């Protein structure tokens, strides 16, 4: 059971690393919210690895934290992206466009 927990922790670390790389490499906040959601998934995977400890109390609380993170991640991402749109922050990615028409097209 122990190697399975280690595997899940490694998966969580890879997801967290992908989130940080995405936060640094992507161009504007509308793309970066998607990378940050990977960080939530990674931490959720680390919390799920609590099953390998075999302690009922730890597993129960870790599942509680994981459930809260899974519920709060889309709400937070939506709030940040909506705040950026209300501020009319410009799109920077060449492939992006705004279907509402309120944001100008990025420079091609």
């Amino acid at each position, binding site marked *: 059971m122990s190697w399975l927990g280690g595997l899940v*922790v490694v998966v969580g670390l890879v997801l967290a690393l992908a989130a940080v790389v995405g936060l*640094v490499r992507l161009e504007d906040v509308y793309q970066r919210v998607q990378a940050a959601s990977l*960080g939530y998934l990674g931490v959720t995977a680390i919390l799920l690895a609590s099953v390998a*400890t075999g*302690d009922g109390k730890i597993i129960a609380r870790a599942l509680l934290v994981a459930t*809260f993170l899974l519920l709060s991640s889309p709400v*937070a991402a939506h709030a940040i992206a909506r705040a950026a749109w*209300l501020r*009319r922050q410009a799109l920077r990615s060449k492939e992006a466009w705004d279907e509402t028409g309120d944001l100008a097209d990025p420079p091609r």
Partner: protein
Amino acid sequence: MSELFLDAAVLALGACAGPILHIVARSDDIATQVLAVDLLGVLLCGVVALVCYLTGSVHYLDAALVLALLSFAGTLAPARAISTGRIFGGREER
């Protein structure tokens, strides 16, 4: 999970704070900074969970839960503040 492996995991997750703090310090739009601080709080929650597995004490997960709640509130409040200018009851459209 061996102790050495968990130590390395804590170090790896803690090292992720460096690029995030760089984004917070150097980014030119405030929404990205709010996003980076949010991600920092969530990753810190993961570090606390790993320390919980290291020590075997269940109380660290209480701290992780409080940290997740505070991080959530600390994301929604700035997101509303930068878009409407107020946290409670601001006008929706600018």
